[in-house]
C-alpha cells in the first residue's frame, strides 16, 4: 500500500475512534443528565403529592362545612316547619275535626321522619364515597331542582370511567363549586351537567342558560382559581366560557384509568 493510502486509512481510523468517543460521551452525558432529572422529577412528584393531600383535606373540610350548612337549612326550613305544622294540627285536635287533624298530623310527622332519615343519610360519613360521583352529582342536582326555580339535568355517557376515591372527592368539589356559581350568580333557569369519556379522558361539562360569566371575572375569581388548581391536581385541565345573555360553560378534562383494566 502506498503512503497516501496509509495516511487516508490512518485518518479514517482516527475519525472512527473520534466518532465512537463522541457518541460515547453523548450517552454518558445523557445518563448523568437523566439521573439529575430523575432527582428533580422525584422532588416535583413529592411536592405534588403533598399538594394533593392538602387539597384533599381542604375539599373534605369544605364538603363537611357545606353539609353542616345543608343540615342547618334542612332543619330550619323543612323539618322545623313540618313539625310546627304537625304541632298545630295536634293542638287543634280538641275541636270537632278530630280525625282529620289526626290524619294530617300523622302525615306531617311521617314527612318529618322521612326528612330526618334523609338527613341522617347525609350525616353518615362521606356521601361522595358512599354514593359515587354520578349519584352525588345527581343528588346535588335534585336538591337544586327541588327548589322549583332551576330545572336540572344530568347526562352520563361514561362506561369505563374510574378514578380513585380521593380524586373523586376533589372532582365532586369542583362540580359543587360550578353548580353553586350557577345557582348564585347566573340567574339561569336550566342547568345541565354532562359526563363523557373519550381516549381515557373524562369531559365534565357544567352548562347553564343564565346571563353568562363575565370573562374578566374568570381570571380574578378565587372560585375559578380553586377549580383550576383542583383540575391541575387531578392531572387535567379546566376551562370556563361565558356567552353574554346565553349562558356559561365550565369544562373539566380529567384523565383516568380504565375501569375494566382495574377490574
Amino acid at each position, binding site marked *: *500500500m502506498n503512503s*497516501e*493510502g496509509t495516511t*487516508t*486509512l490512518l485518518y*479514517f*481510523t482516527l*475519525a*472512527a475512534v473520534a*466518532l*465512537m468517543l463522541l*457518541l460515547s460521551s453523548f*450517552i454518558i452525558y*445523557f*445518563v448523568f*443528565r*437523566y*439521573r439529575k*432529572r*430523575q432527582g428533580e*422529577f*422525584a422532588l416535583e412528584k413529592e411536592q405534588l403529592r403533598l399538594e394533593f393531600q392538602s387539597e384533599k383535606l381542604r375539599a373534605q373540610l369544605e364538603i363537611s362545612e357545606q353539609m353542616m350548612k345543608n343540615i342547618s337549612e334542612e332543619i330550619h326550613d323543612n323539618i322545623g316547619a313540618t313539625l310546627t305544622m304537625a304541632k298545630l294540627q295536634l293542638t287543634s285536635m280538641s275541636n270537632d275535626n278530630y280525625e282529620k287533624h289526626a290524619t294530617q298530623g300523622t302525615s306531617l310527622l311521617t314527612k318529618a321522619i322521612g326528612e330526618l332519615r334523609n338527613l341522617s343519610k347525609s350525616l353518615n360519613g362521606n356521601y361522595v364515597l358512599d354514593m359515587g360521583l354520578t349519584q352525588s352529582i345527581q343528588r346535588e342536582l335534585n336538591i337544586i331542582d327541588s327548589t322549583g326555580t332551576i330545572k336540572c339535568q344530568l347526562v352520563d355517557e361514561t362506561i369505563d370511567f374510574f378514578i380513585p376515591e380521593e380524586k373523586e372527592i376533589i372532582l365532586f368539589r369542583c362540580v359543587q363549586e360550578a353548580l353553586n356559581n350557577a345557582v348564585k350568580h347566573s340567574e339561569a333557569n336550566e342547568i345541565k351537567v354532562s359526563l363523557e369519556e373519550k381516549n381515557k379522558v373524562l369531559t365534565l361539562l357544567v352548562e347553564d342558560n343564565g346571563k353568562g360569566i363575565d370573562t374578566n371575572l374568570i381570571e380574578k375569581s378565587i372560585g375559578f382559581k380553586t377549580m383550576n388548581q383542583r383540575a391541575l391536581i387531578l392531572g387535567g385541565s379546566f376551562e370556563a366560557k361565558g356567552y353574554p345573555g346565553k349562558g356559561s360553560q365550565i369544562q373539566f378534562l380529567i384523565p383516568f384509568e380504565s375501569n375494566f383494566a382495574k377490574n
Partner: protein
Amino acid sequence: MAVQQLILRILVTSMLFIGVIRFVSLSRAFKVVVFYLLASDIAECLGLYLIEKQTNNNWVFQVLSTISILLFYWIFKDSLKSLTVKKWLNYSFGLLFILGIFLLTQVYAFDEFPSYTMVLICITVIVFCFIKFKEMLDEPEGTNILRQSQFWLFTSMFFFHAGTFFIWLTDKYLLPNFNTAIVIYWVVFYLNILHYGLIGVGLYLDNKRAL
C-alpha cells in the same frame, strides 16, 4: 474472517433464540426487535451463502433494508409517547418507505448495494433516537436508566446507525484496495458486535422485567 462471522451469527442467533422463547412476555418494542433479529440473521446467512456460491448478494440487503424501515417504524411507534412525534413518525417513515420502494424498483440494479436507502434509514433513525432520548429526559422513570431495556435498545440503534452513516460518508474517500477493505471489514464487524451486544443487554433487561 469466517471465525468472526461465526461469533457474530452465534451471538445474534442465541439472542433470537432467547427472544423467541420469551416472546410473549417481552414488551411490544422488543417483540419487533425479535423480528428484526430474525430478518437480519436470515439476510446475513443468505448473504454469506451467496458469497460462498460466488453470486452477488446485494439484493438480499435491498430487501432487508426495506423490511428494516417497517420494523424500525414499529419499534419507534411502540416506544415514543408524544402523539405529535408519533404523527411525524408516521409521515417520516411513510415517506422513507415510499422512497425505499422507489429506489428498490427504479434506481438500484439487481446487484447494487442499497447505500442510499441505508443512509436515509440512518438519518431518520438517528433523528428519532434523539427525540426518544429527549422524551426520556422530559419524563424520567423511577428506575435506574441503566436498568431500562429501552435505553440500551436506542443506544444500540443510535451507535449502529451513526457508525453506518460515518462509513458511508468516508467510504468514497478511501482508496479501493485490500487494506482498506480489511479496515472497513473490522470496523463494520465491531460495530455489529456493539449493535447486537447492546440489543442483547436490552433484551436481557426486558426479559428480567417480565419475570
